[in-house]
């Protein structure tokens, strides 16, 4: 277990290095450097030259990357030159808001997805298994901003059941965020549920067709026991990995939906940072998103390893 964990952590760290390096290189290589971006259009030649000299005085790109990484490890992601505040300080409240939203969405989506996915697998080719994939198809293929807008149109405007687009400032306390969270959370949950349900269904079908399930049935084990004792525990193992990936997507992806609802999370911050060309902030967000992805998949892998007795005997 320890060996596996160590190897897995190493891979995770290497991934982080690869991703941040890619983002660092592209941010550095793009035209419109930090100086012209931070000083704005009114910058004088002299000020630009001074700024550029300051940056080149910090050494070449390799040195700068190492420095950035070293300070990032201490939690210092640099300073946003548009907001004039540390990147970490700009990120923290947004990250928290995004985490709240993703958790609410996950709380709705995953239990539903597991129940419905297993149900669809057990009642294969019956009405449940025909209706649900249609829903899945819509959830997976229709762009997220379309399903989100549709949700607003039907439930907020026509039926008036849900609050519409949120107009809360980014630093609002959580008590103000929660009431308006329902609509974006439902939109996120719908999409996440579609992906998860599909995978749960196919995992369950795989197990249902396995030899040991046939064997159990042949031994005359009652169907209810077959499902609870043999099918579910084995089908849920791969599901953990899928759910983890989906949770990472809820946190780090689906930027657009957060823009639709004007939710003060990472999505809107990303949009602002990019349109202002706030490169340190862009880099900080990218690193954070990558770290979230790496961390969530790492935890899921370790969990799956710990729960799966068959993997424990594998030594390499």
């Amino acid at each position: 277990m320890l060996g596996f964990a160590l190897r897995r952590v190493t891979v995770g760290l290497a991934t982080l290095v690869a991703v941040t390096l890619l983002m660092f290189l592209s941010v550095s290589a793009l035209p419109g450097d930090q100086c012209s971006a931070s000083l704005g259009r009114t910058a004088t030649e002299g000020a630009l030259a001074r700024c550029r000299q300051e940056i080149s005085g910090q050494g070449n790109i390799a040195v700068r990357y190492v420095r950035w990484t070293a300070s990032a490890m201490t939690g210092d992601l640099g300073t946003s030159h548009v907001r004039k505040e540390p990147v970490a300080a700009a990120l923290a409240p947004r990250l928290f808001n995004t985490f709240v939203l993703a958790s609410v969405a996950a709380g709705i989506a995953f239990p539903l997805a597991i129940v419905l996915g297993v149900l669809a697998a057990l009642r294969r080719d019956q009405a449940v298994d025909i209706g649900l994939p249609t829903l899945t198809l819509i959830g997976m293929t229709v762009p997220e901003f379309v399903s989100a807008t549709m949700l607003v149109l039907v439930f907020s405007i026509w039926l008036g059941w849900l609050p519409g687009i949120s107009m809360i400032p980014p630093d609002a306390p959580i008590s103000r965020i929660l009431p308006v969270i329902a609509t974006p959370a439902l939109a996120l949950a719908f999409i996440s549920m579609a992906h998860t349900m599909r995978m749960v269904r196919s995992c369950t079908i795989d197990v249902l067709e396995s030899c040991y399930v046939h064997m159990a049935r042949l031994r005359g084990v009652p169907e209810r026991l077959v499902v609870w004792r043999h099918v579910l525990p084995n089908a849920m193992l791969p599901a953990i990995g899928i759910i983890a990936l989906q949770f990472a997507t809820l946190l780090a992806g689906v930027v657009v939906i957060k823009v639709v609802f004007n939710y003060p999370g990472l999505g809107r911050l990303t949009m602002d940072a990019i349109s202002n060309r706030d490169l340190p902030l862009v880099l900080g967000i990218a690193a954070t998103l990558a770290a979230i992805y790496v961390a969530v998949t790492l935890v899921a892998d370790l969990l799956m390893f710990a729960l799966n007795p068959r993997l424990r005997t594998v030594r390499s």
Partner: protein
Amino acid sequence: MNRTSTALSDVRRVAKAVLVQPSGALGLVILVFHVLMMVVAPIVVPYDYAAQSASDMFLPPSSAHWLGTDNLGRDVLTRVMLGGQAAAVTTVLATTVAVAWGAVAGITAGYRGGLFDELFMRLIDSFQAVPWLLFVMLIAVTLGNAPIVLILVLGFCYGLQSARVARAATLDIVARDYIWAAKARGEPMLTILWQEIMPNIRNVLLVDGAMQWSWMLLWFSSLSFLGLGVSPPHPDWGLMISDARLYLTVIPWAALAPMIALSTFIIGINLTADAFGKALGIDRSAGEAGA
């Protein structure tokens, strides 16, 4: 002569296998409808797509404007009919770029194996953690949203997935007897890749490409929605939805029409690709579970 006739009968057989699946037939009908619409739209649209009119703002659907008008008094039907071309053409080209470089990289990795393959797969795995949308947005903002930029960037990002698919398909072929035979005959590597491996994984790449196209459309329309895809006033579904969203309570039709058009187009491609995969005996779900 003989070769063309077998190719023709192959096409007929596959088409039949697609059409007997209800979802495949439905998908193909939707897809053909959209493509026809895109071709004839520039000739048959009733109005100028950019013509604004202060007196015609926020009009509900009527006989003059079948789908009403938007906040600038522009005809929604005209704009919906024209709103797909830019996205469709850009994404088709980007998909071609993606499948092309992905296939070359994936086949090479799968065929060479060893350390090269190992490093390549590690790289692709770690790239899964890259926030690609942020990356593409960054490029679109700094380099501009010229179609060629978007085609290359989207093509690059999606090529990673194609490479994974191509590699898996190659690994499946590479240990077969006819490859050993070709190697034993002393055929050069390029000949083996092109004449022995390529024909055997062509279908996998095609179906994967079709699927990629639908995901690519999703991304492209998201970029448009964020104002980074097609530049106004040229109509584009993503951009139209983004604009009309602000007037959702007043003119829901201006948002609904492009929403339906975009969704059906993507679903149509998706269903068709899926049906082709089934007709050609390609199990896509196997690759997905591992992805």
